């Protein structure tokens, strides 16, 4: 039960083979084994959303998933989405709107916002607020984040704000 287990997965498109303890959660695996510290740990019990990553296309709480559960899975983190350019426009909108202060929630917030925009090209403010409700931000008061996501959705639809 406590011996390391072999796992193979892709992280941001890169093949990873590792030996992990069964109790190791995905957030700690990404941060401590792979050095991907953009996935943040805020509460370690699935409430705050700072550790949000994408596993096989769905956003999950990396603190609630064990690394061994990602065997054969495709994991994407904020570093991957940044390097691929997938969220470049969303990041630019966050910058223009000052939708981050300390930045600790921001990687998870961007993952959640991108998830919404992939599902719904034209969310209204209430829908944006609802979708981001699992991601705590203690700095901004959320208003600027909602603005940035709304502006990105408009731009992706080719509309003017």
């Amino acid at each position, binding site marked *: 039960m406590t011996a390391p287990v072999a796992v193979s997965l892709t992280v941001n498109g890169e093949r990873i083979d590792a030996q992990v303890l069964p109790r190791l959660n995905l957030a700690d695996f990404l941060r401590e084994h792979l050095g991907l510290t953009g996935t943040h740990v805020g509460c370690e019990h699935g409430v705050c959303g700072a550790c949000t990553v994408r596993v096989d296309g769905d956003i999950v709480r990396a603190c609630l998933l064990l690394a061994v559960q990602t065997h054969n899975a495709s994991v994407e983190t904020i570093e991957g989405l940044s390097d691929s350019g997938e969220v470049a426009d969303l990041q630019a909108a966050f910058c223009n709107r000052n939708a981050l202060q300390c930045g*600790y929630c921001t990687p998870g917030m961007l993952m959640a916002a991108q998830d919404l925009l992939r599902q719904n090209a034209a969310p209204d403010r209430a829908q944006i607020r609802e979708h981001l409700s699992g991601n705590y931000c203690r700095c*901004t008061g959320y208003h600027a984040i909602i603005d940035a996501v709304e502006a990105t959705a408009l731009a992706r639809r080719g509309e003017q704000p």
Partner: protein
Amino acid sequence: MNDGVEQTRGLSVLDRPNSYIGKTVPRPNLDRLMQGRGLYVSDMTLPRMVHVVFLRSPHAHAKILNIDSVAAKAMPGVIAVVTGRELADVITPWIGVLTHLKGLKSAPQHAIAIDRVCWQGEAVAAIVATSRALAEDAAEQMSVDYEELTPVTNMRTALDAETPVIHPDLGDNLAFERNLDAGAIDKAFADSDEVVEAEFVFGRHTGVTLEPRAVLADWNAGEARLTIYQGTQAPHMVQNISAKHLGLEEAQVRVVCKDVGGSFGIKVHIYADEMATYALSKLLRRPVKFVADRVESFSTDIHARDHVCKGRIGVNKDGTITGFEIDDLTGIGPYSMYPRTSAIEANQVVNLVGGPYTTPNYRARTRVVFQNKNVTCQYRGVGHPIACSITEVLVDLAARAIGMDPIEIRRRNLVADDAYPCASPSGMKFEALSHHASIDRLLSIMDYDALRAEQAELRKQGIYRGIGIASFVEVTNPAAAFYGVGGARISSQDGVTVRLDATGSVVCQTSITEQGQGSESLTAQIVGSVLGVSMSRVRVILGDTDNTPYGGGTWASRGAGIGGEAALQSAKALRKNILDVAAAILQAKPGDLDIVENSVVDLVGGQQRIEMHELARIVYFRPDTLPPGFQAELMATRHFVPREYPFAFTNGVQASWLEVDPNTGFITLLKHWVVEDCGTIINPQLVDEQIRGGVVQGLGAALYEHCIYDERGQLTNANMADYLVPMSGEMPDISIGHVVSPTMESELGAKGAGEAGTAGAAACVANAVNDALAPFGATVTEIPLTPRLILTALGTI
């Protein structure tokens, strides 16, 4: 001769061509944070680094009879298990008092408890291992024998004779008391048409920084030097305190502060577990890292508020407020926090109640008592949310007693905008405030009359909405009056060094710190504007005691007002030096030259004369071509501290529009407005977002946030699922307006903006709830305003 004389074509240094002042420009370095490439302390690793986990007391008050660490020491990966007694050989205890808070007392506190624990969560042993997980495994093998003592948990009975005294050497559980009697309150109340009173209850809550407290201490025995990587708002304070208690010279300690995952006052203190981590590194001669987990955050990060206050207001039928009286009580835990003390919040309540109003009659008492709960201390807004709520709810109750509109009673009693400078009954000196202009601005952006009409219409349909108004003052830009005069080595001045490098770019080193407020941005905006250099060419270094001037840091809404002015003055000095060099190169007079868009130009006509990078090249690589005896100085340092006023007061007014469901007690926030006067605005977007973030923290306190202790001193909701914070779904959009009354204390004219949102949010929400409940004759004067509280007020439960 006009050599060296600043000529600005009639404009101030802030109002030059291409000035960044007053403009929304994006903060530098956001890409790093957005790409997950920031560097928070929790991300850091060092060679030979080990992790410390603290075994914490399950009891609120108990004697430690025995600590058995034999089994823990045998666990895999364990480097050391250290008790308080062992660590006391490395680090000395402290007492959190300040001399200007007369009579404030506290007991010696150790980095790790010795003999006795005084709150649930106090550390009793440190377990150091090669990973955090292994240290936690070993912690489970620790065995501690306790003898439980009676916990003091109810602040209302803390001073009763039959209540045990937590620290017998202190004689009683009273940490601090302050009394103030200004004017003639008894006569004023006796002569008033109405005297209204209420008891206010403010729940304990805490900051919930999304990154928990984190510290990595690295004692290098070869250098005899300690490097502390810590998410702190005040690096020089950490340097001073750690050196003092480890028996080191300050020069032997370097404090480095990289990215910080939220602070809000939580990270402006020095905690016992942080002291223990510094000491463990020295003891073990290797890097030791401590990152609090969320349970530890809730049980050891400072809590705040936890006040019970009786308030009275006198009012005449014409709307004249005749006086305020308060009797305040607060429980601060078993120790006064170090080094800022736990009496400041209560002191601020006394200072600030009634602050916006003209009445000279004011009596106040506050008592600060010990209890066996986690310590309380300064959290965003320090005292303001309490003082503002007491004042503004009393004003509304007075208005209701005489049948006057809440806006009208404020109109009749707020200090007139042309009455400054003046002082409050508690002695606060106000330089230039704008309460009336702020209300004018508020009414225009919220369309008050239309909302009142809508409210009346909806009431007919059984929909209960309320409007709440709260005027406020906010202490900002504190001079030495806060801490320095009380003997704390917490700097009230800040410094900035500005240097033109060899490529014509600018490097600024500032003693203020960044936790997302925009300290880097405002520094670069000011320096770029004054120098005539593009912001993209200005790099700001902060958060490193080895590499910045000495200063206070970022807290108490002081970064822009104090650090910003130091930036302005240092940039002016460098600008003069650059023009001296340019004049020498160009055989011109400095006063005939200007710097615009990275080039020295003719002041008249704007003809480009020499680019900055060319000037720098000559200075650094061909100084032989400069006139004999001329020494260029392309680096300048200036410091600033306000001297005339102990504090610069920001002021303003907030309004809330909300709906209360009388069946469920649920409150739905619909809209929130803030008008703020923080003087000169350096970056409007940053100011607005500070306000919005502050408002939402205040709304959290008003509606959700509560550290709930049981009668045994057990914190019952120390996790994020049970301790509720505002989420995006419940929060309203927040509209913001400004009035601008610059402070004359500085050339910049900026006052603080970081805490006003928190100061007034709960007050206007409480007033809005009471307005919504008016048809039921119900009032609430307690926060958080839970559904249970609302239903109780309605008599439903």
